């Protein structure tokens, strides 16, 4: 390998812990010039955190870094940028109400200002335009307001920004961190992105995080594999197969115990609880499926394939594809006020954005748990009985092993996993017949994950029908009785996944791309 050359970036024993519990521990990285390095690992393995350490957003607690042979201790993101490291953020770092060119040079205008502190617009615009062209994004007009562009365009703007800044600071060989750049963009953009990355590797090194193993193989020279916040392996891109890479990531073949596969029920005879017919609208085309009593149906597919939209349609979370019908126990849910009706008919929903859609951070654990079932904790109508609420909360706090100082603690202060359990508890408390989950284990630590899987199995034992939407293939495979794979808004592939005959990831991935 390229052992002879000196790495341009080096991290030794980088560690980061948030409020006591360590997320990344003793990570060692080396980046060489013109190299594309991948960091692979499961959700919560510490990939993003590592990038943020490098980018100075979460300065490491321990360990040192070296950039271009000089020690490198960024305390703020901007410092990292000036040193030649810039990041393309997963949750976008663009301000919608500003023009594109303004976003590109956000907080750097001072370098474009004349003596009167007047910003030299034309220079900024010209510069932005050039980079857009280089990236083959001529259709993006730097003068337009950023909010005028669709998500994937904004993503590309961020990438363009990274290159622009690098050039701007006269870094002849920047390092660009890509945190799930392909998470929400379609095939065309992905290929476009990868081509441009390959083109630009002549002048830059890249660190890539993505949720698609194939992309590591396709793009990266070397791949570091992370597990539980440590890097456990290093592979040469061209030599490794997705399978073995995945092996390395999970460190073990998929463990039936982990997903409690033995508890998976046989539902061939069970009655249909949830049935969706011909769902359509905002790029979802004619999606139909049934979920039986006690069944878990996994809904997979690349991000942007429309699986979230299907979930929204089932629970009536506006805006959702309005065409087609959704039936629960034979009752059709209307389009108007579907949300309320759905809940009234025992449909629960664990949304993707936990903090803004799942919990109310300022409210106590008990208040959050009872939020969807206020009538159940009331003696007089309309008045909450403190005692009942407390006992209900305690019951579920114990049942789900929610780690908190007590039912009165604010949800804000709980860890991601425990917050997610609170969301589940909210629906358990109400007693649901249908539960729709959208990436329930996103950003949840391994332990909590396993517990959540346990809860899902319990639910099925009690006869709930579950629609599981997830980007994590293993999760789908492990949990689901049946797996639907979507692509471009349509169901591409359906496969039964009985405990004794689970599909492989490859099998599913083949139908995704």
């Amino acid at each position, binding site marked *: 390998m390229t052992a002879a050359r000196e790495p341009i970036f080096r991290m030794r024993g980088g560690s980061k812990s948030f409020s006591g519990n360590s997320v990344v521990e003793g990570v060692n990285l080396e980046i060489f010039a013109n190299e594309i390095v991948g960091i692979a690992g499961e959700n919560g393995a510490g990939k993003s955190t590592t990038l943020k350490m490098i980018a100075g957003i979460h300065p490491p607690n321990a360990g040192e870094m070296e950039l271009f042979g000089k020690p490198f201790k960024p305390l703020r993101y901007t410092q990292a940028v000036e040193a030649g490291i810039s990041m393309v953020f997963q949750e976008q770092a663009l*301000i*919608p*109400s*500003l023009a594109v060119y303004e976003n590109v040079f*956000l907080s750097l*205008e001072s370098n474009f200002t004349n003596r009167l*502190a007047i*910003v030299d617009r034309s220079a900024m615009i010209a510069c932005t335009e050039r980079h857009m062209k280089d990236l083959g994004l001529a259709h993006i007009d730097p*003068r337009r307001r950023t909010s005028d562009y669709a998500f994937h365009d904004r993503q590309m703007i961020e990438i363009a920004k990274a290159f622009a800044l690098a050039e701007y600071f006269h870094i002849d060989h920047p390092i660009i961190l890509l945190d799930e750049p392909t998470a929400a963009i379609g095939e065309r953009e992905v290929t476009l992105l990868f081509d441009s990355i390959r083109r630009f590797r002549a002048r830059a090194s890249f660190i890539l995080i993505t949720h698609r193993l194939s992309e590591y193989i396709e793009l990266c020279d070397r791949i570091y594999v992370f597990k539980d916040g440590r890097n456990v392996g290093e592979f040469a891109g061209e030599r490794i197969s997705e399978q073995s890479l995945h092996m390395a990531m999970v460190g073990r073949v998929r463990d039936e115990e982990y997903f409690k596969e033995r508890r998976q029920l046989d539902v061939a005879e069970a009655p249909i609880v949830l049935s969706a017919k011909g769902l359509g609208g905002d790029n979802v085309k004619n999606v139909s499926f049934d979920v039986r009593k006690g069944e878990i149906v996994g809904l997979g597919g690349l991000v942007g394939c429309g699986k979230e939209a299907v979930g929204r349609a089932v629970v009536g979370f506006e805006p959702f594809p309005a065409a087609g019908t959704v039936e629960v126990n034979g009752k059709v849910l209307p389009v108007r006020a579907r949300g309320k009706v759905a809940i009234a008919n025992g449909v629960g929903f664990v949304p993707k954005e936990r903090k803004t859609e799942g919990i109310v951070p300022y409210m106590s654990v008990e208040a959050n748990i009872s939020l969807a079932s206020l009538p159940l904790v009331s003696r007089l109508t309309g008045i909450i009985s403190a005692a009942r609420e407390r006992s209900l909360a305690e019951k579920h706090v114990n049942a789900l092993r929610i780690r908190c100082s007590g039912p009165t603690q604010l949800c804000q202060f709980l860890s991601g996993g425990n917050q997610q359990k609170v969301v589940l508890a909210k629906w358990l408390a109400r007693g649901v017949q249908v539960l729709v989950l959208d990436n329930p284990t996103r950003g949840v630590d391994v332990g909590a994950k396993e517990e959540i899987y346990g809860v899902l199995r319990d639910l099925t034992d009690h006869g709930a029908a579950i629609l599981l939407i997830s980007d994590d293939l293993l999760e789908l495979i492990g949990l689901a009785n049946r797996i639907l794979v979507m692509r471009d808004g349509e169901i591409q592939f359906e496969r039964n996944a009985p405990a004794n005959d689970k599909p492989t990831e490859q099998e599913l991935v083949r139908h995704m791309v």
Partner: protein
Amino acid sequence: MLQAWQERRGDSELPRRIITISVFAVACAAIGLAAPSFLTLSNLRAIELSSSVLLVASVGATFVILMGSIDLSVGAVASFCGMLVARMAPDFGVWSIPIGCLVGLSCGMINGLAYVYLRIPSILVTLATATTLSGAVLFISDGRSLTVSDAAVIEISQGAWLHVMPNGVLISLVVYLAAVLVGARTRFGRMTLALGSDEQTAALVGVKVNTIKIQAFALSGGLAGLAGALLAARLGSATATMGGFMTLDTVTAVVVGGTAITGGFGNVRLTILGVLFTTTLSNGLNTLAVAPHLQAIIQGIVILLAVLLNTKRVSAEDVR
């Protein structure tokens, strides 16, 4: 065609601007028809003059509102500084005006500091400073009205260096143009917008959030001070409460100008429309000698209409 123009200008708020302008035109026409004297030169001059003061104050307030904050101390600061100017005019002559502005600036800065470092909601900070200042101005004036004796100061508002318009109007226009430039072309101007739109991101990419906030309040205070000075110069006197009307009128003007009260949307350019709109309306109602209570009602309704036509609206569930 309008769409095409937008495309070219890369400006998605154009329709709003057009709407505001047309409302303005229609209202003017209505009043003009109703009262022949409305469209006379002398009356237009009067409108100019009364707009000029409000314009200066509103321009400053716009930046604060763009950030999603609000400055309720505009009126009090104006009264305070106006009074100071009247006080100092005999000794400092014209220089009392810049001094007044500086005092206003520091009042604004106090607002900003308290807002940023004590982390108290701006509506409350400015409210409190307003109360304190209104006490202070009574204290220095003993509640009396004070005549501005210095001719040079009066000249600043009522004279006419260029013979087309009174100086007061001239100054306010200069301030306005400068502010438009600042709003559109300087770092500070854009950052106020950024803060109103997405504070977290702005902070992440290294915008000095606190500095911007303090600057915005300082600017608002400074311009309020200038407005107070101009008002004193215009009236030829200062009273403890003379700025009072500005506090809500600025908010109205800015909002009617199409800047979202929630921040992050709008700009300084449009504020002048809001100002002209509000002043013309009240002037028109006065020319028609409409009964005061009816005036209040009409003004309220018109604000509603203007906002209805003007502001970007969110779903009923999310509206705050």
